[in-house]
């Protein structure tokens, strides 16, 4: 009997080893370990054995069973793994082919500049103020110390609608409106982005419609050095920490003193190149201390309050930042242009 069991074990293990599919392995399991299998049959003859032999033989039979079962288990794991391998191999794809596109739209480069500037000044406690694009002559000119017939009105060719209404020529209009609303109280800290219009023929550097961001701070102790410091923060943030600014005296009717602000050329670092027309500097904005007439007209006591204001040309910033050479690109909306600004 013992011999028979050992024989069966060898026989079964040989079959397990040669099995090449899960089904075959299952057949072996049923054939040897099933209720009608040879081991069960052998165990049925146990009745003929003596009381001493019976447990010994029983134990042996179990050992044989376990050995076969464990071999089957082992084989099964191997076969299954091979099966998975085969399946995966058949599922292989070309991972270098392009994926299903998720098309994201683009942010207009002018909006990017506006939002970048907004966020910078929001962080410094400014609010974003907006105003109408069609304005009264009063807010566009008179409240800004440009009475009717003032020669400086020629600096800005204006689209008039009627004698008293016009398309605003600058976002300084919002200054006057916000100051009026604040009724002579400070502090006012605003930036005012928006569209403005001037009678210009559209060409590579002129556009009858463009964007400006006006900045205004009014309070009791505002100094020109505050303006300089603020603009320095702005320039370093927009153009890089190593950029310098230069203030040149200038004239705007609504500020006194008035300055033009240049930033050191990013391309040549100030040595002079074609971008900065050999000067090392690029003009980017106009600024100054709010003219006392403007403060007074808006209801502020100019002996008590002072302020500074600056006006940034959005297109100019975008052109400098991205090397755009034609202002009309911003308004043509060619997708081959817009698509270049995915990351901004």
């Amino acid at each position: 009997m013992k011999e028979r069991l050992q024989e069966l074990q060898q026989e079964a293990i040989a079959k397990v080893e040669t099995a090449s599919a899960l089904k075959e392995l299952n057949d072996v399991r049923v054939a040897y370990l099933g209720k009608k299998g040879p081991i069960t049959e052998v165990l049925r003859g146990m009745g003929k054995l003596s009381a001493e032999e019976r447990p010994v033989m029983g134990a042996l039979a179990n050992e044989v069973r376990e050995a076969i079962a464990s071999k089957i288990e082992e084989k099964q794991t191997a076969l299954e793994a091979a099966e998975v391998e085969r399946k995966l191999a058949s599922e292989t794809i070309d991972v270098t082919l392009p994926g299903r596109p998720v098309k994201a739209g683009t942010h207009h480069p002018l909006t990017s500049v506006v939002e970048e500037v907004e966020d910078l000044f929001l962080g410094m406690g400014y609010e974003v103020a907006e105003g109408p694009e069609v304005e009264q002559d009063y807010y566009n000119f008179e409240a800004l110390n440009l009475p009717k017939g003032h020669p400086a009105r020629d600096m800005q060719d204006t689209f008039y609608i009627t004698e008293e209404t016009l398309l605003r020529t600058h976002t300084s209009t919002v200054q006057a409106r916000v100051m009026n609303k604040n009724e002579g109280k400070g502090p006012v800290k605003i930036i005012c982005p928006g569209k403005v219009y001037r009678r210009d023929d559209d060409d590579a550097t002129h556009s009858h419609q463009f964007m400006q961001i006006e900045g205004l701070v009014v309070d009791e102790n505002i100094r020109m050095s505050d303006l300089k410091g603020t603009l320095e923060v702005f320039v370093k943030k927009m153009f890089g920490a190593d950029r310098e600014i230069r203030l040149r005296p200038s004239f705007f009717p609504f500020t006194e003193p008035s300055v033009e602000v240049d930033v050191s050329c990013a391309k040549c670092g100030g040595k002079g190149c074609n971008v900065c027309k050999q000067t090392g500097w690029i003009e980017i904005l106009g600024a100054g201390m709010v003219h006392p007439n403007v403060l007074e007209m808006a209801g502020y006591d100019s002996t008590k309050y002072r302020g500074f204001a600056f006006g940034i040309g959005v297109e100019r910033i975008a052109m400098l930042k991205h090397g755009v050479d034609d202002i009309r690109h911003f308004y043509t909306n060619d997708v081959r242009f817009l698509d270049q600004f995915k990351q901004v």
Partner: protein
Amino acid sequence: MFVSYRWLQEYVDLSGVTAEELADKITKSGIEVEGVENLNKGISGVVIGHVVEREQHPNADKLSRCQVDLGGGEIVQIVCGAPNVAQGQKVAVAKVGAVLPGNFKIKRAKLRGEESNGMICSLQELGIESKLVAKDYQEGIFVFPSDAEVGADALDALNLNDEVLELGLTPNRSDCLSMLGVAHEVAAILRREVKYPSVNVQTSDEQAADYISVKVEAKEDNPLYVARVVKNVKIAPSPLWMQTRLMAAGIRPHNNVVDITNYILLEYGQPLHAFDYDRLGSKEIVVRHASEGEKFVTLDDQERVLKGNQLVITNGSEPVALAGVMGGANSEVKDDTVNVLIESAYFKGLTVRQASKDHGLRSEASARFEKGIDPNRTRVAADRAAELMAEYASGEVVSGTVEVDTLTVEPAVVAVSLGRINDVLGTELLMEEVQDIMNRLQFENKVEDETIVVTVPTRRGDITIEEDIVEEVARMYGYDNLPTTLPVTVATPGKLTEYQLGRRKVRRFLEGAGLAQTTTYSLTSAGKATQFALNATSTIGLAMPMSEDRSILRQSLVPHLLEAVKHNNARQSDSIALYETGSVFLSKGEGELPDEQERVAGAITGLWHAHGWQGEKKVVDFYVIKGVLEGLFAQLGLEKRISYAPVKKDGMHPGRTAAVWLDEKEIGYVGQVHPVAQKQYGLRETYVFELHLQELLAADVEEVRYSAIPRFPSITRDIALVVDKNVLGGEVQRVIYAAGGELLKDVTVFDLYEGERMEEGKKSVAFSLRYLDPERTLTDEEVAKAHGAVLEAVEKEFGATLRS
């Protein structure tokens, strides 16, 4: 203002400072020098030659063969094509080997068989703009005065070895529209002196008052009028140095009398006018307002129709000049003029400006009057002109002037404390430093305690208040030297408004959905102004548009978006998805500011999605663009409050356009552009939307309140309902929601069938209904009850039956 470096040296010592260095210093202290032009333009080898003989070229009608003495005994033959070349002339000769502007080299040549050793030059050939060349030399060579030195450098004689600084003057600095004004500025910068010309008029015994009387009827507009008479002038070219200075300043020489008036204008900034005394037609000058419609021919031979607010100089009956703008043809100084009346006057800037604008006539004179001249130079300018006419036109100056003077000239006195200066600038200047700056500017001043009292010279009419003095201090001190600080104010919260945040959210969503942001023009044509508008009003047009295409303010963003789509379609980009946020302008009546409403609009065409190698593509249709809006509304928390209804709208497809409603308000539309409009714009099938952004963002949206994640399973029931074809799916969905009660959580459409297996005029719409009770597991009975109510409701409302 063009400033000759050599001329400027006459008024201020420029030794040790090159033109370039000077330009830099002027720019830094306040006046932008826009350019420094070297008049030499790289010319070399041009000398003054004497035409000793001139003959007809044997082989060419239009050429001359000249023998020209170049000095030092050198006589060469030159073939010349100029019609005015003549024997005895002193001319500019570019010798063989000379270089002219544009690196043009002169070589020995044979012209029609005749040897030519150089070129006799016109002024244009020496780099002078044609519009600056005197009429006599326009078509030919330039002829030097007979005393010119043969063999000398022609460029020196023509003052072309000079540099010209182009000043970009802001309107406040009209003082620098004169050489003396610039000299003051430069003197202050360099800490040097200003040298004024000495004026010394020799006069005859006759009295000007015997020749002319002056009456001013419009004293407000003309508070000062000075007349001087110069007799027996000989009209001739002005001296070469004067001509060259005028040309350097951008003024064309005419004759000695006219050139002298222009020279004084440049030197003092005081415009003068010279009348031909004998052509005045009377012995009186009357300054008055023109009568409305009065006609007058100006120097340029144009007839002008005058307006009542314009000021004219008359001879008592008719105008002889448009005050401060231009003289009249009737009294112009000509070659035969003998006696001259010099006018030096102070006209009010606004009046001159308006007249100059009305007639489209901007002259050197009007530019100065407009911005304000120094009233203290009016007399001296007349004197200096008379003196120069005596010297350079052989005139006899009649004694005295005839004047009408109602002008009170009070120099501005401005007191400013040192504390104020330092407070405004953020500096710590000392009084000595401030005073030093005032002294450099030649502003009279005295210090009283901590305040400096400045008497501003009348040439600087722009300085009237404390801040003006502060600015003078700042610019002379140097902005580079200002400290940098940041404003110290009470803390202010920097934040966007709800609306600004909402607008950013809308933009971000649309970009995330695949639409590119655009910026288009607000001005459009009459045809496009109200097209596609949500609610059009009468239009708002410009008073003086530059073109028809940019003449009216838009009332919809869609037309320009469609233009942008077209632009791209025409450039091989077929699949386009664009959006814009921007204002439209609705009229509130003539003269009123319009109602500016902000819109968000989009336009989509072509393929919405394509994944070529996998064979996937989706062509844009109505439900694509509607899906974008649904996504947007969900982001804004409004999805349950938005509804859509079919709508007929100009320019839109009648069967594929929906009005968008927010609660009870119509806030926009979405749909396909009408095929006719598509054709008009040159487009393929294109879908658009436009929404009232302010209404959209004004909706009160509650803060998000968390509700517990359900722990119990939901039960889904699908139904296919057969309804009439014209029944709207959205309506059925709404009725189902209403009938389903608390337990019904979602109703989604999952199928639409209108095919042949349906009865005529019917369609089947299939909905999936999800029931849920968050507190417990639903029983079949409860679902059956709710579901029964749904079926009953749709049958009652639409006659809907379940599809078998």
